[in-house]
């Protein structure tokens, strides 16, 4: 498996300097991942299964998972979260492809555009969510501009774009934030390999669409897929943006998980953790599904 973030790098791998040296080099990293991440995840599962010695929860049971999954609101929240994560990913990826092609064709002199393009990467989600709120709220900047132009008479005429049923504010926030992420991943690949093949394509008289479909797309596909998966995973499990810009009800799964977790009713905590585990499982399932689909597509020659 190629790592999602090194696609396009041509590994100059060689036979190792011996198992001991390699193990030593990898040991600290694996220790952190296995103990802190693996441990945290495992302890989460243990607690979600109701095992909590010292708190009167000494029995293993699936009751917490059952309560979460059988809650009439669960399906609602799950679908909402899936929709928001899916829409954000698809829109961001869709815009990123032309953006990456555009950036790739810019000369090196356009470093300012590059720099500006990278700025959203440094902006925390929380900040952009607040800015989006300022702009898109029913009495926000956009609504004021529309009022000034005489298109609407009062904030009530302005379409609801935040705290709305369709999560438009949330999706826009994610799209703004994730386009540079995906684009720069694609750009790294395009810089490496794109040019020569496109020249070949041109000499073979392939038209623009053909060059895109049969040369560019296959080249960027692995990076696009990896970046999209990371974006999907992030947006499916993130709390801040839907908390600030989401509807009162239904809420997304991460908001639900934290609400339960921080409830002063102790019995709600394992349910919060169980919801967290469900989120993790969904994300993992999405990644595995993507791998399987990619393999199948590759076998049938649909992608390179």
């Amino acid at each position, binding site marked *: 498996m190629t790592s*999602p*973030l090194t696609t396009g790098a041509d590994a100059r791998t060689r*036979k190792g300097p011996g198992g001991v040296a390699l193990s030593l080099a990898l040991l600290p990293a694996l220790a952190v991942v296995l103990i802190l991440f693996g441990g945290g*995840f495992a302890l989460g599962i243990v607690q979600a299964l109701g095992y909590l010695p010292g708190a009167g929860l000494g029995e293993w049971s699936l009751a917490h998972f059952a309560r979460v999954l059988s809650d009439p609101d669960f399906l609602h929240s799950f679908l909402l979260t899936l929709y928001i994560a899916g829409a954000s990913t698809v829109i961001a990826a869709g815009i990123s492809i032309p953006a990456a092609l555009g950036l790739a064709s*810019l000369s090196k002199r356009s470093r300012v*555009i590059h720099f*500006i393009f990278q700025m959203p990467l440094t902006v925390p989600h*929380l900040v952009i969510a*607040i800015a989006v709120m300022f702009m898109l709220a029913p009495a926000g900047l956009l609504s004021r501009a529309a009022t000034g132009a005489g298109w609407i008479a009062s904030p009530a005429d302005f379409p609801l774009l935040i705290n709305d049923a369709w999560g438009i504010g949330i999706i826009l926030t994610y799209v703004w934030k994730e386009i540079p992420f995906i684009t*720069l991943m694609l750009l790294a690949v395009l810089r490496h390999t794109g040019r020569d093949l496109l020249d070949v394509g041109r000499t073979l008289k392939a038209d623009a669409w053909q060059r895109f479909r049969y040369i560019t797309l296959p080249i960027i596909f692995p990076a696009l897929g990896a970046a999209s998966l990371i974006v999907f995973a992030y947006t499916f499990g993130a709390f801040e943006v839907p908390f600030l810009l989401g509807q009162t009800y239904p809420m997304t799964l991460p908001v639900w998980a934290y609400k339960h977790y921080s409830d002063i009713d102790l019995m709600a905590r394992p349910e919060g953790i169980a919801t967290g585990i469900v989120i993790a499982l969904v994300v993992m399932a999405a990644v595995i599904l993507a791998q399987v689909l990619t393999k199948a597509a590759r076998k049938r020659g649909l992608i390179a």
Partner: protein
Amino acid sequence: MKKSSRRFFGSIVGATVGLPFLSLVLWSFAERWFYPALWPQAWGLRAWRYITSTAGFQVMTAIGHSVVVAAVTAAIAVVIAVPAGRALGQYDFKGKDLVSVLLTLPIIVPPLCVAMGLHLWFIRLGLAETYAGVIGVHLTFCLPYAIFVLWGVFANYNPDFEDQARSLGASRAVVMARVMLPMILPGISVAALFAFLLSWSQYLSTLIIGGGRVTTLPVLLFALMGSGDRPVAAAVSLVFVAPAFIALLFSARHLGNRSLAGVR
């Protein structure tokens, strides 16, 4: 790209990126700004005075906490990621795929789950509400990102120079410091910047493990946001963006033409 289309492309990018910041700057200096005014009706420094004097201590403390957490997380992540990245980028070995999967998991599993799982045990170990605890949680997802960056760097790294230096009699340490380090320095900057930014913008896992004691900027911003005092929220938001932005400016020098591919 033609000059005109470059202008067009540039202005779309500029406007999309700039507008949100513009709204934050305007609000932070607005003294009175009622609907439907498109422009603040009165300007003032109330919000900036509030966050520099009244809440000044809190904001400074929060900046301090955020910087310590993010910088230490980034430093540890890089120190651990360099040998791991070199092993993964330079050599083929049994179990490499498994390592790759193990490193991918923390990137896709939300920190929320890990933090909730670790919380109770961190309290028992005395790690809850400490820098150590918060940094520990942040490392779970910052470290894999740093490793993937350095993996990519070492995949393109040619160790022949090291052999040459060694044949000229340089010691192991000298080879590391004088040959390897300068060559991978841009990669290290990117990895450190990644880890720094990821940790910097983390909210929920910090809140759960830091428990209101390690109040980083996002935790403070959330508490102040509850007030809906828009000028104050805007001013704190700008303070929140500034250090990360400065970090980007600084590393932009190191990065050269390299982009921040992979940062989120």
